[in-house]
């Protein structure tokens, strides 16, 4: 939340200070009562002020605010409107009414009043309030605009610099984040929170050394600062060689909060695993999972790594000697819930490549891949349209192959189920006579099969998966087996009806089917087949349709 440091509405305070009428003293008596939430007393004072000076815009406005805060919305509004009518060229009546609108959740109206107030008397406080309000209505660009204006009025306003940095961070504008945090940090050189935030921006910009320096400075200011040490540990774990990470982890394990200790214990296991000592790492992961401060997520992660260690041999991530034997491309899927659904043979294949092209781009997957101590190239072309993205990857992959190295293309799910990349890479390998090896993985078909199996009264003995475009030409179908329909590439607007009609040749219109989305982390939507096209005029490629068996529902 963006909060100015100098009061809710300095313009109101200034207006009361400058007032000359007989109501001034009574209003000043009401204000501390209002601050102490003694609304009944404050209301009486303000009604008295209006008796002695009926034309007082200030008394009307503050009475409106008092009634609003006391939860009396309907009686408050006329007083707020009267204040605006009596002092239309002043900012404070609009600011008071905006506060009331905000309390009544009329955010657009509140934003309009604050915009008017900030135009009449631009001030840091009003602009900060409006920025905060715009964030509440998800208008980040508008909020940024307000903060820019506020900082032009007062460039040394640290909370606003920090707020603008936070907004730019959400938009991934790390250079701007660093600029604002640099200014804020110069104004408050001994603020460890600012140093931690600055370190994050520096890390995002790849300035590892500077980031570590900022965190070390925060720790020099307060060696017991747990947040700074945890951030430095996370930073050191990501750096090549992970220098100093073990010391930070041990420090946290000895002196940290229960949560920090569990995390540190996990990281000590991770460091052992990354050094190739899978045998020593397994008990450390189990220990981390058993610590009282371990969160459910940490326990899950630690138990995964403990299980992974048992599938590895010590030294699994050492460089291999013979390159010739393993030259060629590897296409590796980590399953639909990476890295958890990785198979043992894929784990071994990851140990056996020189460079990994990470097409998943997930923080947890990146950490998993990092234990293999191979070069990991992150997702780089996600903003390119698909054909260019495939070509860009191809260029890099085949350059590695030409250099005698063995690259691995690492992706989510099973690359061979709907893999645009896999198809293109394999074709090119075949054309050039380059060796390739793809490994199977847990696909969307497998995941849905496991997810829906408990709903069936018994095993069905099979499953059918079809691309949606194939349905129209379908001649026969075993309706006693579950059917998965994949709208690969998406079904355009208006064409879902054709899918529905094709299925209605085999299933009754009332047959209940389910639409699974976002790769099944959400519950499916159940609907009769006859409503499919009405509910989903189009379907994107992230949705899959599950048609349960006809005779087993």
């Amino acid at each position, binding site marked *: 939340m963006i909060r100015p440091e100098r009061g809710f509405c300095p313009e109101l305070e200034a207006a009361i200070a400058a007032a000359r009428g007989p109501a001034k003293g009574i209003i000043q008596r009401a204000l501390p009562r209002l601050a102490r939430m003694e609304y009944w007393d404050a209301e009486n004072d303000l009604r008295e002020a209006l008796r002695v000076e009926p034309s007082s815009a200030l008394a009307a406005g503050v009475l409106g605010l008092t009634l609003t805060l006391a939860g009396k919305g309907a009686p408050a509004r006329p007083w707020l409107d009267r204040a605006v009518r009596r002092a239309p060229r002043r900012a404070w009546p609009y600011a008071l009414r905006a506060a009331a609108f905000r309390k009544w959740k009329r955010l657009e109206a509140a934003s309009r009043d604050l915009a008017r107030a900030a135009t009449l008397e631009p001030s840091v406080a009003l602009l900060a309030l409006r920025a905060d309000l715009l964030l509440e209505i998800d208008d980040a660009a508008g909020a940024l605009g307000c903060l820019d204006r506020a900082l032009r009025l007062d460039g040394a306003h640290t909370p606003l610099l920090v707020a603008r940095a936070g907004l730019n961070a959400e938009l991934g504008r790390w250079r701007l984040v660093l600029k604002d945090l640099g200014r804020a940090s110069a104004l408050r050189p001994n603020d460890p929170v600012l140093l931690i935030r600055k370190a994050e921006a520096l890390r995002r910009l790849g300035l590892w050394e500077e980031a570590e320096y900022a965190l070390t400075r925060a720790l020099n200011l307060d060696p017991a600062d747990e947040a700074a040490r945890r951030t430095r540990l996370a930073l050191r774990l990501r750096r090549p060689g992970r220098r100093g990470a073990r010391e930070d982890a041990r420090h946290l394990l000895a002196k940290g909060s229960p949560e920090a200790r569990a995390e540190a214990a996990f990281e000590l296991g991770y460091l052992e695993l990354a050094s190739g000592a899978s045998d020593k790492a397994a008990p450390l992961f189990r220990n981390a999972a058993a610590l009282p401060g371990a969160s*459910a997520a940490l*326990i*899950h992660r630690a*138990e*995964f790594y*403990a*299980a*992974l260690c*048992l599938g590895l041999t010590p030294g699994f991530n050492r460089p291999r000697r013979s390159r010739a034997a393993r030259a060629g491309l590897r*296409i590796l899927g980590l*399953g*639909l*819930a990476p*890295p*958890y*659904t*990785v*198979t*043992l*043979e894929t784990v071994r294949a990851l140990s056996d490549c020189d460079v990994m092209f990470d097409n998943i781009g997930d923080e947890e997957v990146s950490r998993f891949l990092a234990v293999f101590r191979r070069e990991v190239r992150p997702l780089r072309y996600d903003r390119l349209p698909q054909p260019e993205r495939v070509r860009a990857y191809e260029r890099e992959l085949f350059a590695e192959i030409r250099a005698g190295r063995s690259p691995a293309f690492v992706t989510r799910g*099973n690359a*061979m*189920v*709907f893999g645009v990349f*896999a198809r293109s890479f*394999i074709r090119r390998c075949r054309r050039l006579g380059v060796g*390739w090896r*793809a490994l*199977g*993985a*847990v*696909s969307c*078909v*497998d995941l849905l*099969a*496991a*997810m829906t*199996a*408990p709903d069936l*009264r*018994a*095993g*069905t*003995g*099979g*499953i*059918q*998966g*079809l*691309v949606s*475009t*194939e349905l129209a030409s*379908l*001649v026969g*179908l*075993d*309706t*006693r087996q*579950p059917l998965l329909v*994949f709208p690969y590439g998406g079904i355009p607007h208006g064409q879902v009806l054709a899918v529905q009609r094709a299925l209605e040749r085999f299933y009754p219109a009332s047959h209940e089917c389910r639409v699974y989305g976002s790769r099944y982390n959400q519950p499916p939507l159940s609907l009769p087949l006859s409503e499919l096209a009405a509910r989903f005029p189009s379907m994107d490629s992230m949705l899959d349709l599950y048609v349960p068996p006809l005779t087993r529902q």
Partner: protein
Amino acid sequence: MNLRPARGAGTLYLCGLGPQPERTATVQTLQALASCDAVYYEGAKDQLEPLLHRYCRDVRPAGPSSSKGIEGRVRRGETIGLVAPGIPLAFGDLAAGLLTRCRHEGLSVHCLAAMSHADMLLAHTGDVLGYELGGVSIIDHAALAGAADLNAGHPLFVALSPAGRPAALRRDLERFYSPEHPCRIFSPAGGLTGTFPLRALADRPLDAASALILPARRRR
């Protein structure tokens, strides 16, 4: 998915280990098995026990008579795993019966996803399901025998069972395919055999870990 069962509540994990467990088991499944008080398995002892013993001390072969014992242990609050090569959907009678009874009793049952023969075959051949094949049907012999209709317009995978009877399988397939329809056998260990006509199926040795592959009936 949080794999840790709630304290005191019994849980049954039904897990597939993929076509070749020592290669195709997922770490997620092994993680679940590591939290089990006992793991029962269906399949070859020499193939499964060395792998499973790394994750759980109490590893036992499962038979038709294991059902009551497993259910009783889950009811007493233990965490029990039942594993088999392949995928969880292709449950045998034991798993299907346990699933039904545990759910009826309100006991917690989790099915974990596993890699299938089809995934492995696609990787082996380099065919991409969404492009080259358009779809696939995976079926076991028992389900095939009871099928009134079949989608023969896309490739068919028949999972072979330990008690595979090639002559009966051929008869069941010939309801949908001509005797000259080409077939291949995919074995996770040995890869794909050469093509042979369906009528010659009876002469082929069928291995329980393999799958019979029939391409689409008409040219796509």
